[in-house]
Each structure stands twice: as C-alpha cells, then as structure tokens.
C-alpha cells in the first residue's frame, strides 16, 4: 500500500493511472495554488498506528481523576442502556448525512420524527424540532424567535436572576445583534418571586423565561401564574426544563408555555463534558419561526407514508440572511440516542426515573441535613435531582477536601455547595455522606 492516509484506498499503480487519465503528471499538478501562498512546511504531527493512538489517548484521559460526581446544573446523566450504544453506533445511522435525499434515508428520518413526537407528548406543544446544540443555545434561539414573532413592540427579555452563567452568556451573544435587551427578575427562596415578576412585566416585554426545575433543582410551584402574567402582557412565556423532568412535572402546555427549551441529553448520553442536546418545542402559531430542522410526514409516489425534512425555507441554506437561525449541523445523532433511551424506558420507566429524581434528592438532602454544620436543602419546597447545601465552613475548602476523598460537588456560594443525585451515583450517597463527615 501507499504510505499516506490509511483511509485512501489508492494503490500506487492506481494513482498513476488516474493521474494519466486526468492528464496530470503528479498530484501536485492538480493544486492550483499560487506560489506565494503554497505551504511547503510541515505540521510536525507524527502519524501513529491505530493501537498507539488508542493507547496514547487512553493514557491522557486516565489523567482525569477517578471521582464520583454529584454534579448537575444543566448537564445530567442517567444510566444509558447498552442497547443505545449498540444501535446508535450502527454505521447506517452514525455515518449518514442530513437527509436531503429522503428516499434513501427513511430510517433516520423516522427516528427523528419519533423524537419530535415524544417531545410533543412531553411538552404538550405541537411542534418540536430535531435539535438545537444545547439548552443555552435553545434558550437564545427562543429569545430570537420572541423578537421576530413578538406580539408586542417590546424589547425586554426577562430571565431569572439565578441562571447558569453559560446560558446567560450565550443568550447575551445571540441577542447582541438584535434590539432585544436581557434583564433579570428576582427569585425568592429559589423559585420565582411572582409579585416582583408581575411588577416588572409590561407591554414592552417580548419574553419571560422561567425554569422548572431551576438550576438549583427547585421545582417551581407557581408556573401557571407566570404563564398568565406573560400572556396578559402579550409576552411569550418560555419555559426551560429537561426531558426527564417533563415526564413528571407540570405539562408546559398546561401552564401556558409558548416555547419550551432545555436539555434532552439527560437521556441517551453519558456525562460528556457538557455536550448537549437542546430541546425546542413551540406552538403551531410560531411554526414558521422555528429555528433548526423539522421532519414531517408525507407520502411517496406510491402513496405510502414517508418522512422528509420540511419547511426548509426557514433555513439558512435557502433563506440565507433571512433564515430563522444560522444553524445547519445540529445534534441529530444525539437526538437519535435520546429517542432510543426514551423508547427503552417507555412511559413507566420515564415516570419512575423522574420520581426517583425527586425521592433520591430528598433522601440525600435529609441525610446531609443531619450533619453538624450542614443545612440541606437550603431552599424550601420540592427538588428534582439536585439541591443547594449550606455549609458553615467555606464551601471551596469543603469541595476541595471532598475531591481529595473522591467526590465532586459544585461550589455555588461562599458557604454553599450544590449536590446532584441520579441513578448513576445513588449507590454512593452513603459514601458521600461519610466523606462529608470526614472533611467537616
């Protein structure tokens, strides 16, 4: 074989014949690059054998400490059944492109249609797209949609004062090119201060954003009121949530949500350093304002049901600068995995998993609350997966000591930690409590 790319199949003889066929003497002849900008240096990257690359990366990644993570705050994982890995890795799914030729990509299209359908069921809203990058970009796109589709003349986007920094900063960038302004509204004991919000909302508000559960894990008790307040002023109500919470908590449609955004990668993906799956669902009314791809049902020439990407005139490759978003490549394969995981759980499994997110968090909070110098949860009310913990000692020091014991938790204030429990670490909660005792 030739040296060079192991993935280029050409033999030397074949290369020669092909060069002859195109009338070139060498591969270099085919490059029409002016001398001035021709690169004749080297990258200095040495080629390695497959096994050596595997060994090298394994060695590098092994430098990540082996911690039991009690981390959440928007990036959550549950146990992913082997089935999902096995089936999603099938090359027909994994190595396919966007379905621009639907006749030979019905398989992927159907999975995406099923993914959309699951989100329609869970949100109660009739339109869900194929995916956004993550919760942060989904929220940001929602704000832009509110800007385009607004029913009022306002420019204000209201978000809770307690919001993950990453979300806020993405939102800021996405609205920077518009006339929208982001403002915060106050929270009270971890959930929305309804009165304060009501006072803040006026007819110049384009969108009100609230989360359920909040980034601190609190379940929002007065969602419908937020919906009403938004509706009364003509603002869009955008609700942030995640795919597991949707299975148990109030249905977004029933509380008046106009757009639902959030993370769907809590199903289908291992913990993956923040790699996400932005869910995006909305009312029929905003269908033509939706960013990203949509799969619709149709018929083929033999009148059989078939699926296809649809309403593409919203998208950048057709509408260019008037597109609803610049998104092109999305998180399709993650959506496929999430759909598989959700299908694996079924409604019973999904609801059970969501219930455990409540009960496991409650139990762990109660146990931690029993420790001297610890109070948990800091906020009243119900929690989903995670909660804030008050520690009398400096939170940073405690977190650092816990890390030395093999546990990772969030530091969210001078004396505040945040702890997240799922089925992946639930068997280690006793060990975590012991570690707390150790380091206090």
């Amino acid at each position, binding site marked *: 074989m030739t040296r060079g790319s192991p993935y280029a199949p050409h033999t030397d003889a074949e290369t020669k014949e092909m060069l002859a066929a195109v009338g070139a003497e060498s591969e270099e002849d085919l490059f029409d690059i002016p001398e001035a900008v021709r690169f004749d240096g080297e990258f200095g990257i040495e080629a390695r054998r497959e096994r050596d690359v595997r060994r090298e990366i394994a060695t590098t990644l092994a430098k990540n400490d082996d911690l039991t993570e009690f981390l959440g705050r928007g990036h959550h994982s549950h146990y992913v059944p082997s089935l999902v890995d096995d089936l999603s890795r099938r090359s027909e799914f994994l190595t396919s492109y966007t379905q621009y030729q639907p006749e030979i990509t019905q398989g992927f299209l159907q999975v995406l249609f099923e993914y959309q359908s699951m989100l329609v069921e869970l949100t109660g809203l009739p339109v869900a797209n194929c995916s956004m990058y993550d919760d942060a970009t989904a929220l940001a796109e929602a704000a832009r949609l509110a800007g385009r589709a607004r029913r009022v003349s306002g420019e204000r986007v209201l978000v809770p004062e307690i919001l993950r920094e990453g979300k806020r900063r993405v939102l800021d960038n996405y609205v920077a090119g518009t006339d929208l302004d982001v403002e915060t509204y106050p929270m009270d004991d971890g959930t929305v201060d309804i009165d304060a919000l009501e006072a803040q909302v006026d007819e110049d508000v384009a969108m009100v954003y609230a989360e359920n559960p909040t980034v601190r894990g609190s379940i929002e008790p007065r969602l419908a009121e937020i919906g009403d307040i938004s509706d009364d002023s003509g603002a869009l109500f955008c609700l942030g949530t995640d795919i597991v919470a949707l299975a*148990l908590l109030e249905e977004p449609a029933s509380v008046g949500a106009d757009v639902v955004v959030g993370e769907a990668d809590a199903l289908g993906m291992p913990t993956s350093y*923040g790699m996400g799956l932005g869910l995006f669902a909305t009312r029929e009314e905003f269908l033509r304002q939706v960013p990203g791809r949509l799969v619709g049902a149709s018929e083929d020439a033999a009148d059989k049901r078939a699926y296809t990407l649809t309403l593409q005139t919203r998208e950048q490759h057709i509408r260019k600068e008037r597109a609803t978003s610049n998104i092109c*490549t999305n998180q399709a394969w993650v959506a496929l995995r999430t759909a598989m995981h959700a299908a694996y759980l079924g409604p019973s499994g999904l609801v059970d998993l969501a219930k455990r997110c409540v009960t496991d968090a409650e139990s762990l909070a109660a146990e931690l609350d029993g420790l001297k110098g610890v109070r948990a949860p800091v906020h009243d009310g119900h929690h989903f997966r995670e909660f804030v913990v008050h520690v009398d000692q400096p939170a940073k020091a405690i977190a650092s000591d816990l890390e030395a014991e093999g546990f990772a938790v969030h530091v969210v204030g001078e004396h505040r930690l945040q702890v997240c429990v799922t089925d992946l670490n639930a068997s280690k909660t006793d060990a975590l409590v012991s570690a707390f005792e150790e380091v206090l």
Partner: protein
Amino acid sequence: VYEPLLSEKNSTRVEIDEEDSPLPDDLTRDSVELPELSEPELARHYTRLSQMNWSVETGPYPLGSCTMKYNPSFTEDVAADPNAAIHPDRSARSSQGTLELLSDLQDYLGRIGGMDAVTLQPPAGAAGEFAGILVAKAYHEANGNDRSEVIVPASAHGTNFATAAMAGYDVVELPSGEDGRVDVEALDAAVSEDTAALMLTNPNTVGLFERDIVEIAEMVHDAGGLLYYDGANLNALLGRGRPGDMGFDIMHYNVHKTFATPHGGGGPGAGPVGVVEELAEFLPSPHVRERGGSYELYEPERSVGKVHGYAGNWLVLVKAYAYIARLGDEGLADASAKAVLNANYLAEQVDLEVPYGPFHHEFAATAGERDAADVAKRMLDYGVHPPTTKWPEFVPEAMLTEPTEVENRDSLDDLARAFNESLADSEEELEDAPSRTAARRIDQASAARNPRLSWHALDAEEE
C-alpha cells in the same frame, strides 16, 4: 419495506396519581402516553430503520461541500473511554486529561490552519462562524471602530449570510466573477470602512482556488476589515496551503468534514475557530492553556463570552484528535491529494460539462437541459447517492460533486456510470425516479403544505 412507528406498535398511558407520587398533585402532570415496548422489539425497530438509511459505509456519498469521508471506527472506541465521561464543572485539577487533550488539539489545529490560537467551543461550523464574527465585532469595537457590513460572495454557504445577519451585520453580497471566483473589481467596490469582514471559502464552493487571495487580503486589510475563512473546504488544502498564510485572520474548522468525525445524520459536529495572535484575546471563554506543566481554564482578556453552554461537543473533538494523530503530516497531505485526484478523475468520466476550473476536491457540473434534481433522483436507482444539486446557484442546474479521498477508481467508475446512465435515461424515467428504491419519490410540497410533525398529528388526521 415499511416499519411502523413506535406509537403504532404500542401506546400506553401512565397516570401520575398523588398517592404514589413523591410530589403534590399540583406540581405534576396528569399522565404520559408513550410507546411501552420491550428491548427485543426496540432492537428490531432500530435495526430495521438503520437498514433503511444510506451512509458512508453503505456506498459513495459524493455530496459537494459536505465532505463525507470514511469515519474510522477506532475513533468511536476512543471517545467511549469511561475516563472521557466527566462533567464540565469539575475542577481543572481533577480533569487534567481532558484539558491536555483539548490543549493538544488546539495546537494541532493551529498548525494545520496556520493560526495562532484556537477555541474548540463552537459545537458546529455555523456556531464557529458565529464565534468568529463575534470576535471580529469585538475587535472592531475594541478599536472604537464600529462597522456595519460583512461581505459574502454570492456563491458562499448559506450559513455565512445567516451568521453575519445573526451578529447584527448587514450582508453585502458579492456576485461571482466570470471565472467563478471573487471578482476583485466588484470586491474593491464593495469594501469600505464599513466592512467588518469578508467571509471566504477557499477553494470556493465550486472547488476553485481564489488565486487573487493575496490581493483580496490586502484590499480588505487596507480598509481595516478582517478576513474570515470558512473551513468547509479545507479538505482540499491540507499540507498545501494554510489559511493563516493566505492572510486570513479568523477561520473555522469543520471537524466532521476535514477530520472525519461522523456526521451522525446531521450532527453533532464541531466548529473550532482559529485566529491570528492579535485576536486571541477575544476568543470565547473558557480557553485552555498549559501553565508550568499543568492545564488550566481561563477567560481571555476581552473574551466574546460564550457560544455554547459548556465546552462544545467534547466527544466529537476527541474523535477529531484521534484522526489527526492517526494520519499525521503525511496522511493529512495524502488525504487532500487523493480527494483532489478523485474529483478530477470523476469529472473526467462524467458526461457533463464542468464550466469552472481548475477545481480541487469538488466540481460543479451542470446538468444542462436536464433538471439536476431529477437526475439526482434517478441516480438513486443506480444504487449510489447523488451529489448536491442546484447549488451553488450561479451554476445552472448544478451538480456539485465531491467524492472525497475514500473512493477508489472502481467506485468512481461506478459513480460515473450512475451519472451517465441517468443522463441517458428519458425525461419520463427521470421524473418518475426513483423507481427501484424502497420509498418512491417523496412529496415535499405536501409535507410543507400540510405539516404533520408528530404521530399526534397523524392520529388527528386519521380521525
């Protein structure tokens, strides 16, 4: 071949009753109705669906501008390493492995593109464009120099237009020159002190190298603008030309094109952005760097902030690193050489005019009197995936074809045969195509006219 929807196999409503719920009734929904199926049923469902899907491992996938390369399976194993499965909010101290790999990848990409600093945060090419244009904007603002326009050639990817608009710029569209390249005179007319940046793909979307790139760069730079490189076609240049050396200030890389991470049916990708030294302080936050033998995250001094909630598509980046490490200098250069050779060889075998050249890794043939989309549908009947059609628009009935380096001569000959036989077929056969596939031509108009976007919509229709 027809596989029922999950919902057609089973639909089960689970009620959420207060008595066995850990939450009071007013905090929960009433019920959830979804398919409840067993593992064997699901295994069959998805296995069958997978078999109804074209992919790189099924056969040639010569979609112009999409760069459908073979995705080495070992990169999947590498990304499945349990040690890669960490949370982004971990301390830097406890995630040195991840940070080291990210740092090394930043370094590799910098060398490959001729760029001084690289962020890996953007989760896709379009997000990379957005990050890059935000950097340009921040740069101009930092210089007290607000600019309002971004110049984009008419032949550019739709994302370029959309991105510039998204960042609040007016888009100035540059018509293509007669030779298919940037019309330098038109550019001269377009460039002004309002020009924030010129976005360029090189080779451009019909595979032509912008020969006047040095002059173009000078013109833009002289006007105080920046030059942005859309990395979609970088697979044509590896080891032969670097955007940084051509005068580009900002570029994004499409790792799912150039570095063979799988497209996954539309994503996830990753769109790292490289910049010249002067712009490094504007890169998104956090950025990774090495300090005294260990790796840390920091916020660049004048960072544009964030374009992704966390650190982008980490697992995709791991695969890209693995690919680059596997190929090295020689492999990367060979990949481009073979990609260009393949495009040239294939064009030679196809009975279609290719109006512009010399092209590199892709060529835009014109279907002439035939409808390019119909020809494409007919190609399905010959067992291959057709090229991108009717784009770019300045080529009439364009068939933008990019075989990539992974096809061998036999497979290129098969592809050519599919082109040529389709072209030889009657108008009727074309309009009726595809006729040999499991699904026949799908009515896109009806899908858009009467949107049915969920099984709920289908059920409603039936009632």
